[in-house]
């Protein structure tokens, strides 16, 4: 589905990610873990086009997408969420999702401003789709509330739903469980598993709480200082001495 070939990202003298090689198959859920500042989010940003990698290639569905603009990459089927929630604060919950639906509506300014019949049909479909997505995370009742008035956990869910509205094949989740208590985190992981099945997704997910991702991921990559220090199944990772040392910080 997606692979990165020797992707490196340098800022000035600082190498945030070096020689990242990730390979994910369709319908896998893969974790990208590592301590804060290990370069996980930078890796996301190079995949989604926010940064153009200093070196290396990003291949999605057999196609080189390195250096493409983020919106173009989203159109190709990669959607993401953000570590620090980035909802549109002056819009309500439904509108937040509808903006993401715009991508697949393929309507121009003229058609949408004049509310031409074709646009009306598409808009109706988008609304139905958005509402069904909201329903799936229990936000349908709050569709008309301001997005930022939701509690933290629900904002996270809304971000995921918003990403789903772009109808992606690959979903990148940046610390989806941040700010949740362990119970909520576990529920979230179940939810992630369920959307994978329902929407036929491939998921790459950043976390730094390992036990949260262990249950849901089939494989994981461990980053430290931008370097991939390990990858494998949760069991392999759990036993890897390098991971234990670098990641858990045990003495």
């Amino acid at each position, binding site marked *: 589905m997606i692979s990165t070939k020797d992707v490196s990202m340098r800022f000035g003298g600082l190498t945030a990610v070096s020689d990242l090689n990730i390979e994910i198959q369709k319908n896998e859920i893969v974790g990208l873990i590592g301590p804060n500042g290990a370069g996980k989010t930078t890796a996301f940003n190079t995949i989604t086009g*926010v940064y153009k990698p200093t070196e290396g290639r990003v291949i999605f569905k057999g196609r080189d997408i390195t250096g493409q603009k*983020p*919106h173009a990459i989203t159109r190709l089927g990669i959607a993401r969420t*953000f570590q620090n929630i980035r909802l549109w604060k002056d819009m309500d919950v439904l509108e937040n999702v509808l903006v993401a639906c715009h991508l697949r509506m393929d309507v121009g300014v003229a058609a949408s401003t004049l*509310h031409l019949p074709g646009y009306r049909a598409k808009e109706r479909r988008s609304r139905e789709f958005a509402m069904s997505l909201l329903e799936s995370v229990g936000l349908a009742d709050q569709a008309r509330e301001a997005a930022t008035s939701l509690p933290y956990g629900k904002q996270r869910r809304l971000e995921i739903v918003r990403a789903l509205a*772009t109808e992606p094949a690959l979903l990148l989740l940046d610390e989806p469980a941040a700010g949740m208590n362990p119970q909520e985190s576990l529920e979230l992981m179940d939810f992630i598993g369920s959307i994978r099945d329902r929407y036929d997704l491939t998921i790459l997910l950043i976390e730094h709480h390992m036990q949260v991702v262990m249950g849901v991921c089939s494989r994981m990559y461990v980053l430290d200082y931008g370097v991939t220090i390990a990858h494998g199944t949760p069991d392999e990772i759990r036993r890897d001495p390098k991971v234990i040392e670098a990641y858990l910080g045990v003495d």
Partner: protein
Amino acid sequence: MKIKRNTLLSLAGIALLVGAIAVADATLGRFSVRILNLSAIYIVLALSLNLLNGFTGLFSLGHAGFMAVGAYVSALLTMSPAQKDMNFFLEPIVPFLRDLQLPFPLALLAAGACAGLVAVVIGVPALRLRDDYLAIATLGFAEIIRVLITNAQSLTNGAQGLKAITKYSTTWVVWSVAALSVAFMLALVRSSYGRTMKAVRDDEVAAEAMGVNVFKVKSTSFVISSFMAGVGGALLGHMITTIDPKMFTLTLTFNILLIVVLGGNGSITGSVIGAIVVTVLMEALRFLDMPMNFLFIKTDGLPGLRMVIFSILLMIVVLYRQRGLMGNKEFNWDDFLGIFRRKGASGAGGRS
């Protein structure tokens, strides 16, 4: 049920407004009608700036430039060759432009189109800049346009400006264009495309990640806004019937910006109210410039006092009510009726 009621109310409201304008046009003096019509032009201009500033989050200070383009294009296209000869008495106008004459509606469209075109050519590259950098770059563009117009003697008549432009900006014309602009803005803002603009305003990075082509959305907004500014500028020219480059300075842009800010950044209702309030207030405050006698204190005329009071009012709004009169809310019947209901419930008798 409720929706039906509101639709009916809206229709009634529109009918009432049309009636009011008709009555005003027929009965009010020319001065009042002039102010009324000027308000309509400012509605168009304020909406155009609000589209950029309020709905797309682009801070542009270049509106005067696009207005100038619109005003000149429409003026030159509607003038007869004889009028042009009279105007260009220093240096003759270039021949192809001399003989080109279009009916007013076409000229108005051409004015908008040319302003839009200028926006594409010079403005769009500047959209890579952010915030205050964009503001000063657009400000710079507007000044450059003005200097070009001043120096292009055989095209624009330079500093002499143009005189005897036909007065097409009648009450019905300006208010129709204003109504059309309001309708257009409402339709745009409520459409899917309008939502992407607001998304770009609130968080560009998130918008880009959700598949919104941020650059395209910004450019579209910029070009539409310039188109409207061009139309507004043209209407202004056809109202005053004479234009020159000195009209289109930064002060003009600031005036429109004030309307947008006063009315509420991101509120169509706000821009409409702001345009009317500001235009009327500027004239209503004129008494401040005259000699006054308040009881015992007599002053000689203090020319300029009006502008002082006006600027103080503006500062009060900016400092104490940053979101303007309407915030980013729009007028709707439920809130409007709610005001009366609340007053009735609290039993306040002080309604005048």
